């Protein structure tokens, strides 16, 4: 869990539409580049954030105009990223391009690219939260 007071916080909200996932990736690229991550680690974080946003959009399945919120907690030795979106009330996607396989790939990527990953569904608030942590190599 993140410390109560990170050194800095960056927040961003994007519409839950595919054309805005690139905006989230650019923002996280800026944040991670200011930390002591290697080039490969920055790229890993960028891909993980893109996957997290894509999953949120898939989950909402066009059934929500609610934004996706990203919160980056910057500490000396780690970056914590929270991706928060509304729990979908829409039916599951009927897209025939093996969505389950893609979701599986997305999960694999996020879990391999980041050091810690956990998800939380807050049904009473209607919120889905994915939290990822990347540690700065010592």
């Amino acid at each position: 869990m993140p410390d109560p007071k990170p050194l800095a916080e960056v927040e961003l909200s994007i519409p839950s539409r595919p054309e805005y996932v690139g905006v989230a990736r650019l923002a996280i690229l800026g944040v991670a580049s200011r930390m002591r991550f290697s080039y490969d680690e920055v790229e890993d974080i960028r891909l993980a954030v893109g996957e997290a946003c894509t999953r949120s959009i898939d989950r909402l399945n066009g059934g929500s105009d609610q934004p996706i919120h990203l919160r980056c907690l910057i500490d000396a030795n780690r970056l914590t990223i929270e991706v928060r979106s509304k729990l979908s009330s829409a039916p599951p996607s009927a897209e025939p391009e093996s969505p389950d396989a893609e979701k599986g790939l997305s999960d694999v990527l996020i879990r391999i690219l980041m050091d810690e990953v956990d998800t939380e569904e807050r049904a009473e608030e209607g919120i889905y939260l994915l939290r990822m942590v990347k540690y700065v190599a010592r």
Partner: protein
Amino acid sequence: MNLRVETRTPREGVAVIALSGEADVYTSPRIKQEIVDLLNNGTTKLVVDLTSVEYLDSTGLGVLIGGLKRARERDGDLKLICDNLRILRIFEITGLTKIFDIYRSESDALEKL
């Protein structure tokens, strides 16, 4: 950054789809459409050139997997060209190097089709 899709037909029944830019949740439907159009027009031997792809996500991977499946259903194939280590790593960590034939050059890929 966006995605550019350029298709050439080096010989009959064979198409090389050269992608440059970002293959993600926003742009991947265009790749899928290109593959589907080629297959529907009878071009079943496909090479997707990822040399100039700077970003590839699970949606892009899904489209390539779907393309491979559709091509093989029509007795065709889909091979990849990639020499970018970042992109190759994505195939490795997802285990997809086991299902895709990935070549370093177009001549190598075309020779094996």
